[in-house]
């Protein structure tokens, strides 16, 4: 079985590593992206990126950026899903995306009841969905849905906050009576929980949601469960934060990490519109390709679990799937942290971490030499 390719032709790993090292050594501004791998792969990718002075991003960071931006600007109330399953007596679901990216969570909340807390236990759980679909919980006991378009969510949440604060509310998409119903629903919770997708409501919408939770906590208890489209991107952002101080979309171009959510985004760099002139792309997860894989307009070194993707690259390596072919540490939003995942299969293929480390060794600290 072939494991490495140069311009679509089978090559030995050593040949491909040599070619990749040459490509990177000749590049003015490398980009290290994809990052669809485990903690070991991320560590190796960051070590390589630091050596190269590369720009770094994850393929799916767009799904988490609105959340991180809202948190950074205004703070947040955040819950663990498992605690909400035992604690929340009223759940407000905002928008349509939770029905898809949070389907398991919604199902789990609608099929369980709060069993902790004198204020919440015994009264069952009510779920109110503001959206055009309720997805997996449609028609379940205790589930009501108020029709609301995604585009109207931010206004609606703002009006609910105004209503709770006793401020006059103007004309809005839902009408005063419905706003009052929503406000009463969350205010009457013993422990309320707001489920939403930051990518759907945007950074400003996310700030409104955190603001609503803050308002409610003046009198009762409330927290939120932001649903992020990609656990893997969140894990990469967390590791990036402790490694470089910033959650992805950063550059080691001037050695000290610099963060810019627009400038260093994958799409901009890979499309050729950015500074990067060469890319290393890691796509080593079993669950298919990135959500929105952009067209790559740069010479690319691709480490992929899918051999076809590796073969199609200028230089490609077939690598093992993190979490499937080898034991891995991966972020899991059900747990709200990193978990160890034991391999289900064995593979002869090298890990992404091993290839990235071999590449870094071949380059031997390019930046250090240049300095």
């Amino acid at each position, binding site marked *: 079985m072939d494991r490495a390719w140069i311009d679509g032709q089978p090559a030995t790993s050593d040949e491909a590593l040599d070619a990749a090292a040459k490509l990177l050594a000749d590049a003015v501004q490398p980009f290290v992206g994809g990052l669809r791998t485990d903690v070991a792969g991320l560590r190796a990718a960051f070590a390589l990126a630091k050596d190269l002075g590369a720009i770094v991003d994850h393929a799916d960071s767009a799904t988490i950026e609105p959340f991180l931006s809202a*948190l950074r600007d205004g703070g947040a109330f955040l819950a663990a899903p498992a*605690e909400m399953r035992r604690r929340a007596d009223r759940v407000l679901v905002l928008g349509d995306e939770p029905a898809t990216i949070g389907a398991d969570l919604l199902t789990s909340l609608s099929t369980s009841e709060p069993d902790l807390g004198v204020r919440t236990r015994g009264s069952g759980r009510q779920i109110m969905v503001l959206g055009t679909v309720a997805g997996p919980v449609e028609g379940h006991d205790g589930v009501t849905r108020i029709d609301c378009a995604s585009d109207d969510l931010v206004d609606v949440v703002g009006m609910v906050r105004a209503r709770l604060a006793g401020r006059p509310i103007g004309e809005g998409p839902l009408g005063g009576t419905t706003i009052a119903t929503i406000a009463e629903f969350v205010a009457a919770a013993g422990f309320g929980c707001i489920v939403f997708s930051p990518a759907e409501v945007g950074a400003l919408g996310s700030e409104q949601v955190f603001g609503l939770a803050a308002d409610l906590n003046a009198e009762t208890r409330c927290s939120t469960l932001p649903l992020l489209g990609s656990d893997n991107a969140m894990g990469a952002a967390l590791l990036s934060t402790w490694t470089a101080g910033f959650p992805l979309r950063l550059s080691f171009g001037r050695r000290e990490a610099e963060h810019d959510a627009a400038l260093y985004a994958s799409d901009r760099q890979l499309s050729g519109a950015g500074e990067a002139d060469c890319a290393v792309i890691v796509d080593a997860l079993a669950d298919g390709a990135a959500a929105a894989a952009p067209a790559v307009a740069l010479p690319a070194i691709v480490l992929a679990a899918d051999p076809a993707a590796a073969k199609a690259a200028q230089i490609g390596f077939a690598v093992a799937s993190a979490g499937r072919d080898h034991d891995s540490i991966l972020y899991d939003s059900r747990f709200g*942290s990193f978990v160890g995942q034991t391999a289900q299969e064995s593979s002869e293929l090298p890990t992404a971490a091993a290839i990235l480390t071999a590449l870094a060794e071949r380059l031997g600290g390019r930046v250090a030499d240049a300095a």
Partner: protein
Amino acid sequence: MLKRLSGGHVVDPATERDGVIDLYVEDGVIVDPPSDGRSADETIDCTGLVVMAGAIDIHSHIAGGHVNTARLLLPEWHRAFSSRPGETALSRVGWTTEETGLRYAQMGFTTVVEPAMAPSSALHAHLELADTPIIDKATLVVLGNDDLLLSMIRDGESENAIADYVAWTVASSRALGVKCINAGGSAAFKENVRKFEFDDVVPDYGVSSRQIVKTLQRAVTSLGIAHPLHVHCNNLGVPGASSDAIAATMRAAEGDPLHLAHIQFYGYGTEGKRRFSSRGRDLAALVNTTPEVTVDIGQVMFGQTVTISSDELRQFAGRAQASPRKSVIFDHEANGGGVVPFDYRRKSFHNALQWAIGMELFLLIEDPARVFFTTDHPNGAPFTTYPDIFALLMDRSVRQAWLEALPKAVREMTSLAEIEREYTLNEIATMTRAAPARLLGTADRGHLGAGAVADIAVYRPGADKAAMFGTAAFVLKDGEVVVRNGAVVKRTFGRALTLRPEPDKAMKARLDRYFDDKYGLSARWFEVPDGALGHNDPFKVVPCRA
């Protein structure tokens, strides 16, 4: 290879040495001088320098979910690092695991304890610690607001069963000890309780904070865990109620070891027209007369920082003072917590008195083996302020200069100006080396006797104590020179010191069922798997007492 550190003034209270002595190092440990006359392969000239064991920080929030959230919340964080020269563009430099390890090493610290690891965040915390260079590290795992412990106490389960649960938690999370943070307070806050005292009971469980602390204290003792239960008391920061809480907790030690964290935040009375006063003198007296307790200070220093705590109830209350005005409050399983940025201002009566109370406690607690050197990093101040604190403790004239810069109303509320004590080098070494090692049960460090790990800090003495302790002349980690003239010259990786109690099989089965049934989680997710950390040999197991 045999290394000799020659001619240095060795200050090593654990072995009762304080004078010019040559030290020998081989294979990463300190050895006796060669009896066969063998000469050293390498000599490090320490003439005129002060030689101590590597320092140990017993309480510094350096890793884990909450710490990382602080980084996310505050990309402008680096301003909190007072030692960073000048202003750097806000977007450019973050506070990283890398910097944490290097900066600690530059000051001669070689072991640091992350004191608030949630069981659910154990793997995350250890991943960060594994990425923190040079220093050895350890963690305390947090219990005392978790449903299972509270249920077990409510249901009258046996002390053995509770100890089995504690042992499983310590073993799974790879901890070195157990911490209890506002026992029952976070659980009560989830029930919308906003004020919680030592004898208040958590709704639904009918279990008091006192019961939780006593139960955990007994479990820790019965398991032979060397480090006493590490307690963060109720009502942190509340004038009057805080000092009542810590006094009640201290009396509840009842002759058995108990460690009380960052006690400066509990030294607050309600006297004076601002209803905020120092109870430093009373609290120090209580510590002096309660020999079974140890304490650390949590000194406040002025400037921007961020508070990171698993005391969700008090962090929620602290949101009102957030500066900048943003904070994150967590409702996780068990403790939860909060991240609240804070700017301690020298011109603020409240903040300046907090600073003075910390100093009073440091200076009025008589036994340097029972008071530990902390800022509760970063809650009172970033650890990079340590050199200034050493100077304040060792030099009365430095204190006087600081006092004179404070609001006059503060000087009237503290007895600090009258306190003449100046810490000696020997007392500093006791407080930051010998005593922490004894407290943690890590006999292989904190001293320079034969057999100790060769973690050694060498300082250039001078009138400016901040300069002396800010940049070590040499630091050896496991026998290798890692710092020279304050600069890191070798980037090694240390290990995590952990206990490894053998968990009871029946308890393990019970917990598998419990986490699955109640939370829909796998108990295995709480484990830090071997091989997870990407280093060979990432752990060093410290034995429990028989």
